[in-house]
């Protein structure tokens, strides 16, 4: 049973452009942006136990870095996207070094303050960023929707494979040990501060990468993408899909993004509905909605299979 679901999802993702063109392909492309953000955020929150509210801001840093490098220096887009990821990682390193020495909610507090002030900064520095109007950015790959979609899929796979690889390595074992019992891990000689820092910097870099990708797919970066509501959206996607699994969070992102487009008339209510969804999930289905549905379906299937011979 294991491995079948991811395999089927992968085939569906590769074949998707065969059945959907233009509008829904574009929706799925944006969905992949959120999938990268949600899966890296859920790794941080679910596996490491660190809650950062700067993930949307880091995506913004990646987007603005890449956009400014392309428009001012004329560098090729893949290089600027990497530079965006690197810049986000550097900011992550700074914030992490400041806050991860202490236990408690310091990271959450500081990242929230940071993202709010980053938004103020890019809105106020009009000469550099065009303020709230937003910065026009050249599209990647000549604006081809199909190629952008596959680039996004590739970046998403890189994200999931890298993060899963980290989680299955020694470092991943340390991270889970720290999450379960920090004092115990420390007495075993694990330098908890530096491993937490590694995890935070790594996931921040992927947020930056996703931001750069978003910039060159949409062609416009604006302070909107760093709003607190965007962070709420990433959180909703991760919690809906289940914080414990990267793929679950990614699937949550795709589903909620599709739902957003489907519920266009409710745009105003969108975040309120998603907020209520998160509250409901946290209260009644702590594992996440998708894992609960999956378990329930699995149980039904098993019951049906065991009944079949009679």
């Amino acid at each position, binding site marked *: 049973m294991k491995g079948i679901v991811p395999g089927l999802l992968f085939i569906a993702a590769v074949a998707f452009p065969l059945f959907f063109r233009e509008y829904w392909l574009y929706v799925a492309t944006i969905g992949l942006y959120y999938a990268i953000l949600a899966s890296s955020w859920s790794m941080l929150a679910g596996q490491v136990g660190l*809650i950062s509210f700067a993930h949307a801001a880091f995506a913004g840093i990646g987007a603005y870095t890449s956009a400014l490098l392309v428009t001012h220096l004329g560098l090729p887009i893949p290089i600027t996207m990497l530079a965006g990821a690197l810049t986000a990682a550097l900011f992550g390193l700074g914030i992490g070094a400041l806050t991860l020495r202490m236990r408690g909610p310091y990271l959450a507090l500081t990242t929230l303050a940071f993202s709010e002030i980053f938004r103020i900064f890019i809105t106020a520095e009009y000469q550099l960023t065009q303020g709230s109007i937003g910065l026009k950015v050249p599209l990647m790959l000549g604006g081809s929707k199909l190629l952008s979609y596959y680039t996004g899929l590739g970046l998403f796979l890189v994200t999931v494979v890298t993060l899963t690889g980290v989680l299955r390595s020694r470092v991943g074992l340390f991270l889970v040990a720290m999450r379960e019992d920090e004092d115990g891990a420390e007495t075993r000689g694990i330098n908890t501060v530096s491993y937490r820092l590694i995890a935070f910097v790594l996931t921040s870099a992927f947020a930056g990468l996703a931001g750069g990708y978003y910039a060159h797919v949409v062609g416009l970066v604006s302070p909107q993408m760093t709003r*607190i509501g965007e962070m709420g959206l990433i959180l909703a996607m991760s919690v809906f899909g289940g914080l414990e699994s990267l793929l679950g969070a990614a699937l949550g992102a795709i589903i909620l993004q599709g739902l957003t487009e489907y519920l266009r008339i409710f745009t105003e209510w969108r975040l309120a509905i998603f907020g209520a969804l998160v*509250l409901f999930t946290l209260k009644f289905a702590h594992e996440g909605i998708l894992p609960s549905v999956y378990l329930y379906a699995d149980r039904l299937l098993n019951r049906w299979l065991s009944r079949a011979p009679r």
Partner: protein
Amino acid sequence: MLFFSQLANALVIGTLYALMSLGLSFIFGVLKLVNFAHGEAIMLGGYLYYLLASLRLPLPLALLASIPALFLFGVFLERLFLRAPYQRKMARYDEYVILVTFALGIFLQNLAFPIFGPYNRQAPPLFKGTIRLGELVIAGDRLTGALIAFAAIGILIFLLYRTYLGKGLRAVAQNPRAASIVGIKVLRMRSAAFGIGVTLAGVAGALFGPIFLVNPEMGTSFAVKAFVIVVLGGMGSVTGSVLGAYILAIVESFGSILLPDPTRALAYKDAYGLLLLVVVLLARPQGLFGEKERRA
């Protein structure tokens, strides 16, 4: 003269900041959690006062009437989302409370958009006009706001140190297990503390209403300020929060005259908090009056 007017302004705004961050600090002290929906409590207080005032209720009455409503709302939220996980000692409770309070904030903020509309509202001030002290001019709405906030802080301190409820709250803050052994109802104290914290934020929001504007997103920037103040003063410390509030107000007030470009100066007023936060985290992470963490 500019110096004195900026100082007077800082003291007035600082008193309001103190009120709102005491709410956050209070919740942290008793429940040991940061309420990430604090900004939305401020926003709700702002709207409650605005709506009651637009019903032609006498203004002081509008302010007083919002207090029990805010308290009950806070108690309701604690019962709904925070009590059961605490009671059954849920695994990874610390992360849960951050997620649930943040999601609550997002929910309330985005519920306010369709209900109240995205517009800026100006709540009526309790006292119009200006006060002159020699050459110093202070707007009446700011001064009355600060005086009411001052009184509210006084009431809170009286409640904390001179009543039975306050004794219970402080006992739970120090050691919940010992408190429950001597017969204090810990769960009830936690509910009360959350209710009081929401009320303090809401009253601060009501007082901010006439000075700044009321809109669904107003809470975010105030909440960020409250976070900075609470970290600066030391999590859970009453004295620290009050002192931290005045320090932030003074830094903001004098920082904004350092920048020559007026539009930038206005925009970056909110950014000084982050600078202060970085300095505190570098130099004294436990805050001015915080205790250094002791590990089990």
